[in-house]
């Protein structure tokens, strides 16, 4: 984990604004899945449209770092920007993918779910590296037990139990962040 991974979103934005190249790399790493998920899951953009939106979001983010009202609010700002650019893209390419093919209520629900996933991924980042790696490979990267076993040099028969143990740790981490919920 790089030193910038420990920074809050606001601290990271401030470092980016100061021209810190490593901070910009971390910002892209931190939010690339988020922007990608909004484009392809919430708006169901086709791959080439999603790529254009993705690059445009980060280009505008870089250009407008000085104009953010609240550095800590970079995530909702990126979500709003991605949403606007996706809508523009759907309107521009209406012959391929009509704008009305996307229900605004479905988009809102999908973005809520992406936000919830981000919260889970943030909790995941607190877990030991071994747990982060195995859960990300299995769930987010959709790798098989065999692939994970070879990549991490672990006996294939232990992968399922390790995943289960890491999920239990993740649940504890999330409930530690929301003690009222775990008691309910």
């Amino acid at each position, binding site marked *: 984990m790089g030193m910038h991974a420990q920074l809050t979103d606001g601290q990271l934005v401030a470092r980016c604004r100061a021209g810190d190249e490593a901070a910009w790399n971390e910002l892209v790493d931190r939010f690339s899945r988020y922007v990608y998920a909004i484009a392809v899951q919430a708006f169901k953009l086709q791959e080439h449209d999603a790529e254009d939106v993705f*690059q445009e979001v*980060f280009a505008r983010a*870089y250009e407008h770092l000085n104009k953010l009202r609240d550095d800590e609010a970079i995530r909702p700002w990126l979500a709003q920007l991605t949403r606007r650019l996706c809508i523009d893209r759907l309107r521009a390419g209406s012959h391929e993918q009509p704008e009305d093919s996307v229900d605004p209520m479905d988009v809102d629900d999908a973005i809520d779910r992406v936000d919830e996933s981000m919260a889970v991924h943030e909790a995941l980042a607190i877990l030991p590296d071994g747990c982060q790696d195995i859960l990300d490979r299995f769930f987010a990267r959709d790798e098989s037990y065999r692939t994970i076993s070879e990549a991490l040099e672990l006996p294939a028969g232990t992968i399922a139990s390790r995943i289960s143990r890491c999920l239990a740790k993740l649940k504890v981490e999330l409930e530690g962040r929301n003690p009222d919920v775990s008691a309910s």
Partner: protein
Amino acid sequence: MTSYDEEQLGALLSALPPAPEAWVKAAKELPVALERLGEIVERAKADEDYRRRLVADPETALEEADVVAHTQNIEIIRRRLDEK
């Protein structure tokens, strides 16, 4: 936030797959690309003939300047030229 079981946690983890590596790499290289785009726009502001060529065929102008002619780079050039 609700209390999660393993299945829900797995589903939420699955909902954030990594973006394609090439996209992430290009986004990380944006500061350098934007600096080059800035140089191109400055040149266009100072050289009307170059500006005409840039507007007429941005792809070639970008490639000559060793900048990937992505749609967003062309859009940035157009936007910055319009800001004049």
